[in-house]
């Protein structure tokens, strides 16, 4: 666990429409917003459905699995991050994309469409989503 006093890595500063989604991540649960009217899953979290405009949105617990849609291997990094690391967009089982690290000792061996599962990293008082390879290719 990182020391809160020296960790210079940013943490999300939620707005009212993203607060509950981030709070539930802090509690160790990833959810995916879903429209109550048309059942569309979407991200980022927002207070209306980007498909039909309905205002009723539920945060549905995510299956916790997905596949790597694409990624870069950062060899340069902002303050507080230690390269190399895999910065990925993961296609969640529910459909939407979510950014996070794929934690691996062999970033050069990672491939597009690799299967991953959701994990969390403690950062100060918050948690940040990351992903771990499950060893199979979707």
């Amino acid at each position: 666990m990182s020391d809160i006093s020296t960790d210079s890595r940013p943490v999300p500063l939620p707005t009212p429409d993203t607060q509950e989604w981030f709070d539930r991540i802090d509690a160790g649960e990833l959810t995916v917003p879903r429209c109550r009217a048309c059942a569309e899953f979407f991200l980022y979290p927002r207070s209306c459905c980007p498909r039909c405009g309905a205002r009723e949105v539920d945060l549905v617990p995510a299956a916790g699995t997905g596949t790597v849609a694409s990624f870069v291997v950062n060899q340069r990094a902002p303050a507080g991050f230690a390269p190399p690391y895999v910065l990925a967009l993961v296609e969640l089982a529910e459909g939407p994309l979510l950014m996070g690290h794929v934690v691996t000792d062999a970033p050069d061996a990672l491939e597009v469409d690799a299967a991953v599962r959701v994990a969390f990293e403690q950062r100060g008082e918050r948690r940040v989503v990351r992903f771990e390879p499950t060893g199979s290719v979707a």
Partner: protein
Amino acid sequence: MSRDRALRGAIAVVGAAESTELGKIPGKSALELHVDAALNALADAGLRPSDVDGVACAGELPVDVADYLGIVPEYLDGTNVGGSSYMLHVRHAMAAITAGLCETVLVTHGESGRSRVGMTPWAPAPQSFMAQLELPHGPVGAPSLFPIGVRRYMAEYGMTREQLATVPVVQRQWAALNPRARLRDPITVEDVLASPVIADPIHLMHCCLVTDGGGALVLTSAERAAQLDLPAPPVYVLGAGESSESTVVSGLESLTSSRAIRIGGERAFAQAGLTPAEVDHLMIYDAFAHVPLYGLEDLGFVGRGEAPAFVADGHTAPGGRLPLNTNGGGLAYTHTGMYGMFAIQESVRQVRGTAPAQVEGVDVSVCTGVGGMFMSSGTLVLGSAATL
């Protein structure tokens, strides 16, 4: 036929110029670069600030550009959607001028991207979706985020690292013909792949320059253009289109294609009544090497997955059938931050026949801008008098 077809060729670029210097200009603030380019563009049109009644810009406030130059505006456009903003300014000016809201619009760009003189430090606002959903994961800025879809593109279409590296190689060939280009020495595919890795598969030579500079356009109706005593022939706006998508890359519909480029391009070509096959010269915003590849496909110049081989086979190089980014582009000419203005400048020069690396017989030039990491796009179809 859409109603905007009636506006085809209704306005023209009557003045176009860049800042007196490009590159490293520590003696000028960002606002001064707007003003320097504006005065150059007005001189190019044989006009004075008092002839202008509309001002559009991004980065600075149009209020400041107008006031600095002593312009009393009756039309202001502060649209800022990143590097494609200037394409949108031209499209909005087309609507405003033809609707009679104003007569002569000055569009300005100026950015002290390298020296950072008179610039607000760049930082995403804490409440932005980028700050909430991306920055906690440590992207090294645009070089991580903009090309994040490239691996998916490689997996789906079989693009090789060598093919991606040919984009900066070819643009350096154009830059070698342009005395104002910052990087003019020839490079090879091996040089690109030997340059430092920033965010694999992106190497340093896949990334744009960071420079100071400015550019400006003077726009008026085709009718008024015909009455002015212009030093250079008018360049007509035959078509224009714009669109936007998401400020976060996780919000994009596809990682191998840009919806904003597709929609902006479709609208521009439809208004112009032209197809890609009728285009003589092309500019596609190149903040990173993959962007022109996406653009070639999304604008319809080649089919899906065909752009890497098209560039690697030399079709966009000097002597090729589709000259692309002939000033050297953001990769080799200049890139202040919001590069779109420089793409328009080169299109105007090519249609006028005054570009340093002039392509023979350019009557139709297309320029496409992109903002953010594919968050926005604007496309202009520009033409000579022969295309009216």
